[in-house]
């Protein structure tokens, strides 16, 4: 009588081990293709050599991964504790593959895909490896697959009878103890084949594609895969069951039972690629709008030829700042480049990382304040000078400007580097250290300061900001600087031959002049530049005019738009022009308070502006909040458009003033003499 190894409804130990390893291997295969981080773990071939399940069998010398001749990569975390938590082979192994939708980005960053929820048989306690609730945040889970691996013993009443009845008909099952090795081999072989099929099958289901996409994208997605291992079968709802497809592997008969493996899966899953996702790693976005990376000219701060600032970096685009500058050594080509470039660009140097908005002043603001004769308005008119009624430098400098320069320059001009900055309070706000040198050689620095002035002014592109600049005691210098810059700007353009309507005299200072201020000054006797001053109304009109131009005047226009800084072609040129004008202007007496203040404004003597016109200055002083109103125009805001006639008139006024002063001085001296005499008389 053959003894059945299943009398006790217990498998032979070797078969028991096969069953145990079958559970483990099935779990491994499933998790390896569903849990994103399973394969990341290094798994030693002999890692589980000492595991209880493997050591209990006579043939347990093989490492776990070599069971069923299927060496797998990685070791799921769940598998490590699997043997600890699984109490019996009679317990089913239920692996739910979950599609987790995370609602919060914060949660997503902390969500660890592939986290495993293990439940004890009671189903209530969570194992340590389960994620904390606070980590999960708000998330929804949906079972997309359910794998059920179970061993059905004959102990089971229904199955046991079937097995008992079927065993007699089965051709491959023997219950003799002597046949255990044969049984073992057969069971092992069939189990091996089944696991081969499982390995292939898990890769054919839709969840595998989802797994691959989530595992390889490296991006934070609202969707993620997770899994949950239970040791009991939680039935689906009717709705869930209706949408699931089922597939069952052919059970493998064992001496005392059978191994079953089946899966319920959703045939259609969500398209992960359509979900928004964010990069996993924090990255600095370097190419944001307005960054130096997107504005190449911004980087080239020392390249004077990089005068290809874009218009948008100057105009209403607050995110841009022109970089690059045709000055201090603008060449003809640079000018031409500027000509074709609609944007005004400032000298690149010393204006590192200046936000574009710092120098971007909407023309709307400009137009709205056109009635305001503030210094900012005045400066803002600078870019329009080319197209507007030219302001003759003679108005300031004695009217030695040729008529040609008084015409509005329509050609684009390059913005020289700031040359007045050191004298400009505006510039103090954004003075780079190098540009604060109040030395003559620092024309480039002045240019930088000028640009910094632009920057700072445009940064505070608000009335308050402009008022701040207006209140600056150095605003006169700004004005003067702007005037000179504009003049040089226009002049330089003319010299470059790109300024229509501007005629250069022989003494025109070309744009191609180097940053040598002396050379600029020398060549600035007959300033041919068209000082880009315009009335408020004219400024607006010229803004429009210039806007519509092909781009010739857009450089200056943009300056006007910014409303702060004149657009000298080069700092040296502008400086030279201004100085030349100042030098040619008649000196003023000390009793002219404006002159005193103006001298205070400009530390550099060469920058001491000559009082243009007493009346104008006084008028400007009244309107201006700046204590320095000697320049009149600078302090008070938008300058009036200057024509040759104005310049001549101013010159006449200078002369008259001079005569008056002389007379006054003479009379005063005579009075003093008289007083002295009377005092002497009295004393005597």
């Amino acid at each position, binding site marked *: 009588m053959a003894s059945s190894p299943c009398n006790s409804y217990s498998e032979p130990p070797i078969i028991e081990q096969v069953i145990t390893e079958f559970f483990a291997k099935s779990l491994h295969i499933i998790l390896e293709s569903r849990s994103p981080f399973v394969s990341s773990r290094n798994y030693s071939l002999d890692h589980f050599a000492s595991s209880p399940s493997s050591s209990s069998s006579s043939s347990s010398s093989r490492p776990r991964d070599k069971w069923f001749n299927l*060496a797998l990569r990685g070791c799921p975390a769940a598998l490590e504790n699997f043997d600890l938590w699984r109490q019996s082979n009679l317990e089913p192994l239920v692996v739910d593959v979950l599609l987790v939708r995370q609602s919060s980005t914060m949660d997503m960053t902390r969500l660890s895909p592939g986290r495993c929820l293990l439940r004890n048989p009671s189903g209530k306690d969570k194992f340590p490896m389960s994620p904390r609730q606070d980590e999960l945040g708000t998330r929804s889970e949906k079972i997309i697959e359910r794998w059920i691996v179970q061993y059905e013993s004959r102990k089971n009443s229904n199955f046991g009878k079937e097995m008992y009845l079927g065993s007699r008909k089965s051709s491959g099952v023997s219950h003799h103890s002597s046949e255990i090795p044969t049984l073992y081999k057969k069971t092992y*072989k069939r189990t091996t084949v089944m696991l081969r*099929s499982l390995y*292939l099958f898990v890769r054919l289901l839709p969840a595998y594609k989802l797994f691959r996409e989530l595992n390889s994208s490296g991006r934070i997605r609202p969707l993620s895969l997770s899994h949950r291992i239970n040791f009991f079968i939680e039935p689906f709802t009717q709705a869930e069951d209706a949408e699931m497809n089922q597939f069952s592997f*052919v059970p493998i008969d064992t001496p005392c039972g059978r191994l079953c493996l089946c899966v319920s899966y959703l045939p259609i899953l969500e398209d992960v690629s359509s979900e928004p996702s964010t990069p996993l790693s924090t990255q600095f976005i370097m190419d944001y709008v307005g960054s130096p990376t997107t504005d190449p000219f911004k980087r080239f701060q020392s390249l004077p030829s990089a005068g290809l600032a874009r218009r948008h970096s100057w105009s209403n685009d607050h995110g841009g700042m022109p970089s690059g500058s045709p000055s201090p050594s603008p060449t003809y080509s640079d000018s031409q480049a500027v000509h074709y470039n609609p944007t005004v660009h400032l000298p690149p140097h010393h204006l590192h990382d200046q936000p574009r908005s710092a120098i971007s002043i909407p023309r709307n603001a400009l137009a709205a304040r056109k009635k305001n004769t503030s210094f900012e308005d005045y400066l803002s008119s600078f870019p329009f000078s080319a197209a507007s009624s030219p302001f003759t430098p003679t108005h300031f400098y004695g009217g030695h400007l040729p008529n040609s320069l008084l015409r509005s320059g329509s050609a684009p001009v390059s913005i020289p580097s700031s040359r007045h900055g050191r004298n400009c309070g505006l510039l103090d706000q954004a003075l780079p250290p190098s540009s604060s040198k109040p030395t003559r050689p620092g024309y480039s620095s002045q240019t930088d300061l000028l640009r910094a002035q632009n920057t700072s002014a445009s940064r505070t592109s608000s009335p308050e900001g402009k008022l701040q600049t207006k209140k600056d005691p150095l605003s006169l210098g700004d004005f003067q600087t702007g005037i000179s810059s504009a003049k040089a700007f226009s002049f330089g353009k003319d010299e470059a031959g790109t300024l229509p309507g501007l005629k250069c005299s022989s003494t025109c200072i070309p744009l191609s002049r180097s940053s040598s201020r002396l050379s600029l000054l020398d060549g600035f006797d007959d300033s041919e530049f068209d000082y880009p001053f315009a009335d408020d109304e004219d400024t607006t009109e010229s803004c429009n005019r210039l806007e519509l131009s092909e781009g010739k005047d857009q450089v200056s226009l943009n300056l006007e738009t910014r409303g702060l800084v004149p657009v000298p072609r080069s700092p040296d040129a502008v400086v030279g022009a201004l100085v030349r004008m100042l030098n040619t202007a008649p000196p003023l007496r000390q009793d002219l308070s404006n002159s005193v203040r103006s001298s205070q404004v400009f530390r550099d003597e060469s920058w001491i502006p000559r009082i243009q016109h007493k009346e104008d200055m006084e008028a400007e002083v009244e309107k201006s909040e700046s204590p320095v109103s000697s320049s009149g125009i600078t302090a008070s805001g938008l300058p009036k458009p200057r024509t040759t006639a104005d310049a001549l008139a101013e010159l006449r006024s200078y002369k008259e003033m001079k005569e008056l002063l002389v007379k006054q001085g003479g009379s005063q001296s005579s009075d003093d003499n008289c007083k002295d005499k009377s005092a002497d008389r009295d004393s005597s």
Partner: protein
Amino acid sequence: MNCETCQLKELVVEPLEIRDVLRCILHTIVFHRALGLVRPKDVDCELFEITYVQCGDAELERKIDEKIDLFIGWVEKHPNKKSQVCLSFYEVRNKQATWMFSNKTERLYWEQWYINLHVINTKTHGKSHNSKAPINPGDNALEESSSRRASLESALHEVLFQIIKFVNEKKDHIPSVTNSEVISFPYEITTPR
């Protein structure tokens, strides 16, 4: 021992798709019959979004590619024909020599897989790709091509499922493993001649 035969679902393929399809199917079948120690290697199809598994045996890979080349060569000579590629597993038995001079070995096939392919040539079907054709394939041709490719992918998916079902249903005919080779059983791939 019976010889289990599995006729796989016919696949309509283009010449360029032959290699990818045959590789997928052949490796999938052999993987089920490679009962030696294998380290599975996941391979993504080049033309389809299907991942199949290889045994990792270089010799097997070489043999399969070799047979595929032969088949492709035959297809080029016999375009637009239905054909079969047969993968057979057999046992070698020494046939007792009836004659003193012969000692033949006998192959007992215990499993045969017939991969049915219908190779179509789009050129001969009016969808010319040569330069002489009007350079205006249009969206229709592109849509048809992609549709056909998707259909083939689905069909290939079904074939793989068919293989898995067959392998799971038929296990008793598998002979015992008598060696430690990766490919436990000898096999041969037969292409049309």
